């Protein structure tokens, strides 16, 4: 056994983009292998939960966790890896705020199962079989993890030491973090790797006083590349989103969608974003405001909480 500090990766409810983004650090990944003894990385190498269980508590220096917590398996692994790791990092938007998988909190498990196993046109399921936690078969009893009704963020499940926001985190930021780890620098508790201002700070577009008479969908306009997208009536989340990405989307004429989450010290991303947008609507009566909303914001939850529904104050929609 080498004396190198142990590093673990885990992949819960997420798309795999985080792992790909990690590989985007290119050959630097070798330096990581240099510095660490990688004990667990489901996406890259085979490994068993029992191997993790075998490690002493606190035996892992750092675990980089990507993905939201949406099943009893995820929760179990979160607790396990928390116990084993000296530092647990919420890696990427899913672990940080719930991200796209977290939009499931806008509906319910029953609805999701119905869509996936019963109602979808491509499904033939005459016995209406649904996933269940236990099934007896001649060979014995089969078990599946329980599928939760509500997606949780990592820190709603176990204590988290640091966050690496973004969907996915930019390779540069990932490298910043890994470097810090390699250099053995202690991560300040609760640290978020990213800037302490919002995307506008990195955005090159010229901005002036805002007064929005109508909100347009992206397909309705070809935006002027020089001026602020929000001022052109496009919902750009840059005003509320933590900087760190280099304003990539606005840079290519596409509004920011907020994957880096809220700025430092902000508790609810959606609230800040919608407050900012609402404040500059050019309407003074409920009727006029509604007119703008109806025309431009058909899906407020998907708009303001696209990456942060589980991490928001309300966490999910009511079960209808």
């Amino acid at each position: 056994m080498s004396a190198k500090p142990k590093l673990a990766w885990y992949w819960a409810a997420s798309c795999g983009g985080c792992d790909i983004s990690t590989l985007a650090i290119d050959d630097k990944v070798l330096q990581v292998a240099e510095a660490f003894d990688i004990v667990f990385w489901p996406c890259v190498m085979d490994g068993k939960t029992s191997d993790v269980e075998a490690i002493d508590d606190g035996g892992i220096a750092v675990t980089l966790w990507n993905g939201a917590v949406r099943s009893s398996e995820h929760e179990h692994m979160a607790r396990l890896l928390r116990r084993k790791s000296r530092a647990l990092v919420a890696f990427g938007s899913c672990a940080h705020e719930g991200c796209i998988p977290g939009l499931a909190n806008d509906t319910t498990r029953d609805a999701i199962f119905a869509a996936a196993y019963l109602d979808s046109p491509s499904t033939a399921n005459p016995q209406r079989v649904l996933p269940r936690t236990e099934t007896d078969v001649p060979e014995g009893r089969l078990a599946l993890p329980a599928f939760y009704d509500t997606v949780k963020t990592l820190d709603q499940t176990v204590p988290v030491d640091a966050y690496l926001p973004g969907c996915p985190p930019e390779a540069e930021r990932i490298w910043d973090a890994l470097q810090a780890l390699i250099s053995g620098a202690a991560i300040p508790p609760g640290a978020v790797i990213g800037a302490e201002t919002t995307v506008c700070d990195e955005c090159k577009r010229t901005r002036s006083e805002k007064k929005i008479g109508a909100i347009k969908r992206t397909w309705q306009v070809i935006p002027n590349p020089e001026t602020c997208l929000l001022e052109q009536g496009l919902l750009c989340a840059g005003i509320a989103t933590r900087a760190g990405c280099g304003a990539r989307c606005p840079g290519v004429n596409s509004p920011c969608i907020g994957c880096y989450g809220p700025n430092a010290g902000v508790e609810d991303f959606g609230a800040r974003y919608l407050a900012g947008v609402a404040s500059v609507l050019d309407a003074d009566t409920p009727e006029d405001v509604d007119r703008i909303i109806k025309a431009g914001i058909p899906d407020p939850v998907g708009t303001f909480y696209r990456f942060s529904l589980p991490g928001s104050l309300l966490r999910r929609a009511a079960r209808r």
Partner: protein
Amino acid sequence: MTDHAHDHDHPFEPKIVGFLCNWCSYRAADLAGTARIKYKPNIRVIRLMCSGRVDPAFVLKALARGADGVMVAGCHPGECHYLVQNYKTIRRFQLLKHTLAALGVEDARVRLQWASAAEGQLLADAINDMVEKVRALGPLEWPHRWREDNGLDRLDAEVTLEDARLGPPHPEERAREVRP
């Protein structure tokens, strides 16, 4: 005591958080008191300088913390002590309502109420009206809506109905690990 068990000894009493502006609505509430106008004790008032200070996050926080309803009150449009700030309140409130509706929060639970410093009675009536409407809707108990306990058992119950061969449900703690 928590709110999710209501019997005739503990009938449901809505908890409403009221964000009142310092100049009109808070004074209206003062006036209601001075005039000994009685109204339902279910509102808990938080004073802000202007309804324009009401950050949508305040409303969400209150709901997330177990409030059954939230009232935002300010000067009548055009009579804002800060001239025009309550127009901004209107804009934010409408967009917030739109979002809350999408999240399934009933309309009557969040209310924007204008009340001038002279309208103690009007504010008292508005509070009574809101308390009754929220009472009719029942407790919101938002915090319980993301607890796992509601859901898991229901899932297994449904499946049991479908297939008698099912064993007893697993408590989530004992759920087996699955190899990656």
